[in-house]
């Protein structure tokens, strides 16, 4: 057991001591210790005069959903009045508010208009759906009130406010004062609501004598999970969203999985291993072609299972390997296949775009039984995906960016086993067997002030989303620069709204994009790099770390070449020196790549 949080606010020595202590403890002892520590801290807090006054201040979060600005104005009035009464009030546009912050709130004001036929205003949509959806947290202990603005000439008068009220209540929150629904002449009613809301809050200030913030749920100590590669955690699916707009030829899914209760932890840059299921249609075709019984018992890694299960979950059938072909050739007794196996380049050519069904159809083995067949095939290996989230931002969730791999070859539509499983065949009830595959060689700089340049076209952008979430949560001040590319701006800009949001908030310093098919000549990220040569060189002088993620065959070498050219030109170095410069960056962990 080891604490491995790079951002733990402890010195190396303290970490060592802590690790030494924890290693000797049983689980129940750790549980006791965690309770002890939070009590210890609470006792400290009450004797600390600064903390005591802070504890007295009531924190009020004001959220508004507004189409025309009226609601926003009322939210401002509430904030003004609350602040004047000594309440620590903050106003958020609902679209700018992180829904998962809700569970940390104590007092909440929700102000919203209603749009059209009872729909929420655009900026309220995310929060509205979050509260009504699977990811909504329990909100016991939250006290709130809702003010809804509407127009009673509409059938669904103030419906959005009513919905918010009901959803909050359902999640366990308590209404501090009852909801008020205002008609078009809202001023008087809104003012009354503001006054009684602020009065109720003010009376709370008086009532709350300085008391210890009792057993606040402190962060659980880092305990290594019982789940790993050999024992994957069945992760429920929270969300599965196609990211490409209409008309795109790409199909990339944003998949959110729950790690709740698994104890699994990960860091930005790590990958998630997934044990996929094969396509039942392909499995059925195989069984039919071989004329086997799906229910036949087969021996499988020291236990037995049905043939169907073995093929669905435990054996690779979409990829052919050389060893399999060699074994197969021996048993099939086919002259042709034997020759093919011996001719390396011909074999490579034949393997391309073919799977086990092709092999079975082309070179049948006489007398092959189900058990023998299963033992020829290799185990279905897990698929790795770069994680697209940071736990600092998403707690016990893990997010992936999965491109569905589909192609047509040798008269059949085929697909990548894991990506098409996630795209086509999982339901809300499916659990995905997962484990964390740590990647020490793709990590944010330890120095939060260091600049980073992220080059991630296509799904290569995934780890950079985790980087940004992490740096945002950490309050890291280092400049961040993303180079993203794909086919079309309108449909393929993965996580566009998030990047724009981070640029707007100032977290993302530069955002450069290349969309290859939006103009006559193809433009890729390496072209954008070259255009920004001077600035990139300046960033490198300032200690920037460069990260490249994505396609290993073309993109990564092209980007490498562009970087070399930039170093040559801007640093006035020979090719040789530039290569050495880049090597040194690699040794210093300032040039890291996650390419596949």
């Amino acid at each position, binding site marked *: 057991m080891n604490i491995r949080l790079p951002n733990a606010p402890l010195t190396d020595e303290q970490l060592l001591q802590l690790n030494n202590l924890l290693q000797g403890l049983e689980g129940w002892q750790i549980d006791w210790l965690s309770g002890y520590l939070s009590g210890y801290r609470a006792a400290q807090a009450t004797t600390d005069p600064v903390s005591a006054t802070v504890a007295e201040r009531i924190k009020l979060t004001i959220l508004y959903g507004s189409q025309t600005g009226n609601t926003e104005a009322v939210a401002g009035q509430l904030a003004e009045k609350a602040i004047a009464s000594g309440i620590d009030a903050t106003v958020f546009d609902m679209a700018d508010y992180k829904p998962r912050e809700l569970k940390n709130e104590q007092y909440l004001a929700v102000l919203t208009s209603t749009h*059209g036929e009872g729909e929420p205003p655009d900026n309220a*949509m995310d929060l509205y759906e979050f509260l009504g959806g699977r990811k909504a947290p329990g909100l016991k202990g939250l006290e709130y009130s809702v003010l809804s603005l509407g127009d009673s*000439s*509409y059938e669904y008068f103030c419906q959005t406010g009513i919905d918010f009220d009901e959803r909050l209540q359902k999640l366990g929150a308590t209404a501090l004062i009852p909801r008020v629904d205002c008609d078009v002449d809202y001023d008087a009613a809104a003012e009354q609501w503001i006054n009684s809301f602020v009065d109720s809050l003010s009376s709370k200030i008086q009532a709350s004598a300085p008391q210890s913030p009792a057993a606040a749920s402190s962060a659980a100590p880092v305990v290594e999970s019982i789940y790993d590669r050999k024992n994957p955690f069945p992760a429920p699916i929270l969300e599965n969203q*196609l*990211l490409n707009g*209409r008309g795109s030829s790409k199909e990339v899914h944003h998949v959110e999985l729950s790690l709740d209760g698994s104890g699994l932890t990960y860091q930005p840059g790590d990958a998630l291993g997934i044990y996929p299921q094969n396509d039942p249609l392909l499995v059925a075709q195989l069984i039919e072609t071989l004329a086997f019984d799906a229910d036949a018992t087969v021996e499988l890694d020291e236990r037995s299972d049905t043939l169907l299960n073995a093929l669905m979950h435990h054996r690779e059938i979409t990829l052919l390997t050389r060893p399999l072909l060699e074994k197969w050739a021996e048993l099939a007794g086919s002259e042709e296949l034997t020759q093919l196996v011996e001719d390396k380049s011909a074999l490579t050519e034949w393997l391309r775009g073919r799977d086990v069904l092709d092999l079975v159809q082309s070179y049948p083995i006489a007398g092959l039984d189900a058990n023998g067949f299963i033992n020829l095939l290799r185990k279905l290996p897990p698929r790795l995906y770069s994680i697209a989230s940071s736990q600092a931002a998403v707690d016990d969730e893990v997010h992936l960016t999965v491109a569905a791999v589909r192609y047509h070859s040798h008269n059949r539509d085929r697909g990548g086993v894991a990506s098409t499983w996630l795209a086509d065949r999982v339901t809300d009830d499916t659990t995905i067997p997962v484990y964390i595959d740590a990647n020490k060689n793709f990590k944010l700089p330890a120095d939060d002030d260091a600049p980073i340049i992220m080059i991630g076209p296509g799904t290569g952008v995934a780890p950079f989303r985790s980087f940004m979430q992490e740096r945002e949560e950490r309050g890291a001040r280092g400049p961040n620069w993303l180079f993203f590319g794909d086919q079309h701006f309108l449909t393929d800009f993965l996580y*566009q*709204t998030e990047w724009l949001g981070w640029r707007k908030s100032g977290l993302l310093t530069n955002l450069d*994009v290349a969309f290859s098919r939006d103009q006559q000549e193809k433009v890729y990220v390496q072209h954008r790099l070259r255009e920004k040569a001077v600035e990139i060189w300046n960033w490198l002088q300032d200690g920037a770390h460069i990260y490249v993620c994505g396609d290993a065959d073309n993109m990564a070498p092209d980007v490498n070449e562009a970087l070399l050219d930039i170093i040559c030109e801007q640093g006035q170095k020979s090719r040789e020196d530039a290569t050495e410069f880049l090597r040194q960056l690699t040794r210093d962990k300032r040039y890291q790549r996650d390419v596949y």
Partner: protein
Amino acid sequence: MTTKLSEAEQLKVDSRYLRGTIAEGLDDTASGAISDDDTKLTKFHGTYMQDHRDLRDERRRQKLEPLYSFMVRLRIPGGVVSPQQWLGLDAIADSCSNSTLRISTRQTFQYHEVLKKDLRSLMQQVDALGLDTRGACGDVNRNVISNVNPHQSAIHSEIHQLALAISGRLCWQSSSYAEIWLGEECVYQPGKSEEPFYGEQYMPRKFKIAIAVPPENDSDVLANDIGLIAIIENEKLIGFNVAVGGGMGLTYGEPATYPRLATVAGFVPADRIVDACEAIAAIQRDFGDRENRAHARFKYTIDDHGMEWFGEKFAEYHGEPMTEAKPFELLRNGDRFGWTESENGHSNLTLYFNCGRIADTEKAKERTALREIAKVHQGEFRMTCNQNLVIANISPEQRPIIEKLVEQYGLDDGSARPALRLNSMACVALPTCGLAMAESERYLPTFVGKLEQIMSDIGLPEQLINIRITGCPNGCARPYLGEIALTGKAIGRYNLNLGADFSGQRMNRLYLENVDEATILAALQPMLEQFAEQREQDEHFGDFLIRAGILGAERTPETLHQPLKTTV
């Protein structure tokens, strides 16, 4: 300046004569949008940012920004373009827009679904045709519209020259246009004025001028801030009756906002009419409300100060007062479809287009047809204020060629279809207009189709009725001048307004509020049946409703806000 300016006014002042950060926004390739402030400034440049509202929710889930695009509106005073210009404008529809041309209710072209990356290219192509987009939107004088006069070519030519002159006089001048769109060097210097007429605050609100030649009122002349009614004596244009303070928009639930028809103030001779328009615009520039944008149109300035005040101010600004208005008679505000002859022996053909949309579809190759006509036509094209098109000044030699093309492509000269469609008008609304609360252009054919059925059942298939639909109360399709008008309240729900006249001289009133199609039809059916039985010779539906006592004739701000009925 001692008092603090309103946000909208401050934005104009800070914009450095409409530059803002528009150029930087166009260069940002990571977003299809421009900044909020810039979206207000680009209106002056003739373009609105919009987004595909049908896809908003879907794209939000996909973590994609809304599908932003731009509507670009041209400045074409009097709506006249040459065949060469037509061909250029047609080509732009393919290279930069959605392959359709749309004639607006102010006699100009609108392009829709123009992506940010294509905006500059579009503006440059427009410039190359000798046209521009200055002031097609924004707080300035908008496109000056005029009667198309298919049958009076000589008068039309004179009127058209005046429309050009008025538009030219009141066009904004800042070099920002050439810098942002045409790539010219920035010449901005702090403290140096680039707007001799407007100054750095421009107008308090949009400003609209229209010209009518009686008895035709196809330009809905009284719906404008300045309405010029041509006075012709002995076949000579002697001058104009000048009406002031018209405007269509209102805000639901705010009785202080209301549409208003312009009031005739007096007569101005033709040779001083451009100066007179400038003087009137200057009065509004100096006295319009710059604090409350909902109260900033000229109609409120006129009502706040009164006509007498206006008369005095006009004399002061113009150097001489207006003389007494001359008698005139306006008979209709629709278009006259089909062939007409001009005095000079040439002919004109007015063609119908559904909501002004010119497209190549399975049913009809309208764009191709007009392109073929433009290749041979030697006269001009005149867009009408009702979103239709006149192929004007066709010589006797050319006429058979044009006739053949019209027949070959099945263009609609108004003779074939049921009558109701000919006088129907709708704004664009969903999916692109950000203000729309309900469907309009996409709904018009359905609604009119259902009314046509009723009209046919009651034996009045040939009866003309002005029908107008808008997606919101702001008035792009001049809905308060419809004999039957719907203004959008929510998806599938409208306010039903009834009882305008047929010539654009009496507004309608609110009849039912926030009702669905079934309720609207249930309300109209018995009225139309009664109309069929009891109407007098040449009586129009709007007039009948008043004579029959179904509605009063009085029009006040209240009659446009308080529904007459709450149920059918």
